């Protein structure tokens, strides 16, 4: 899964889509996930990194990340036709 190439993300978590003019604010966890997407990390890798860092259950991480991806898709920040399996 790739973050839309036009999207600008600042260190502070300000996310700007220059195509639609929309802007969003991501929390620290959101920034971390977006950063990993920008580095083209796979979903499994993202899960693993978060699991190691936050010492929580795998199902919780999986659910939270899936919810976040859904948000990103709804806001056209990642390609709509991409799926969480990529």
């Amino acid at each position, binding site marked *: 899964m790739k973050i839309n190439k*036009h999207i*600008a993300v600042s260190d502070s978590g300000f996310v*700007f889509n*220059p*195509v*639609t*003019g*929309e802007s969003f604010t991501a929390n620290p966890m959101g920034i971390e996930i977006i950063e990993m997407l920008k580095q083209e990390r796979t979903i499994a890798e993202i899960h693993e990194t978060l699991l190691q860092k936050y010492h929580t259950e795998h199902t919780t991480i999986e659910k939270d990340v899936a919810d976040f991806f859904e948000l990103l898709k709804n806001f056209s920040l990642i390609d709509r036709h991409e799926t969480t399996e990529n």
Partner: protein
Amino acid sequence: MKRPKIRIGVTGLNAIDNPGPGVPVIRGLLEASSFDAHIIGLAYESLEPGIYMHDLVAKTYQIPYPSSGADQLMDRLAYIHEKERLDVIIPNFDAELFSFIKLAPKLKAMGIHTFLPTLDQFEERLKVNLPEFGKKYGMHVPKSESIYQVSDHKKHMDELGWPVVVKGKYYDAGIAYNSEQLAGYFNKISAKWGLPIILQEFAHGTEFNVTGLGDGYGNTISAVPMRKQYITDKGKAWGGIAITDEKLLKLTRHFIKETKWRGAFELELMKNKKGEFFLLEINPRIPAWVYLAVGVGQNIPEAYVNLAMGKAVQPFESFESGKMFVRYSWDMIVNLSDFEKISTTGEL
């Protein structure tokens, strides 16, 4: 190199809550690198704020309302020209454009240049003609019908559905959810702007605008799309951001190429959930938010004047996206003597 001085008459000095484009146009002109602009204001009312902005406007003259007819306007412009030797006039109101288009050859003979759409282009894009315009040029437009009596709406509502947008032929609009509201808007808008009233299918989605400039041969000189971020109760943008939607830019280039649009314009569009754009209106003039285009690198007023003067103008190839404008109001302190002068002599 010394820049040539160009004397430019500008209308639309009403920098109010429903602002005319005059003041931002002047700001663009004063920032032009290719000429030194000397601005003459052309105002209808003595309280148009631009009249009193002496750092922007060298002198202002009152001109007659469009309803007075083209002859009266011509007489007044001839008087102003005698005093000011105007090189260019930029009319900024929809309602005055018809007169200026009609007068353009006479003005040119006097040495005053304009860069306006042709009468055909002007009329073809009128709100009442928009459905045909959409068909002719292959652009999505919402369904619309013109009515001359309130009761006429009934025969169109099955097709248009509720809510419906009630529009004046030049300005003003309201969204009506039932016949009572529709009648209210009909009466209010027609009292101010006359008939017909246009009923337009309500398009759901996000509103986008594009301002640009066509050279009259189908070439795009400028195009800058904007998304409104803050909208006033009059539906005017109080804040907006330049965006880079390629689909919007393509649509704009298509509009200019197909119509061979001459002059400045603003497209008002709605993007639905499927990502399709519907053309709501074409304003045949520079919009009040044009200073955003100047701020992102496309000085439309400057290019407009150069085209009017018959100079070759290279199309702008890019602009800086992600820049915003935020409008603000500003109280000027004005001497009563200034107000007295413009009110009694029609000049300041």
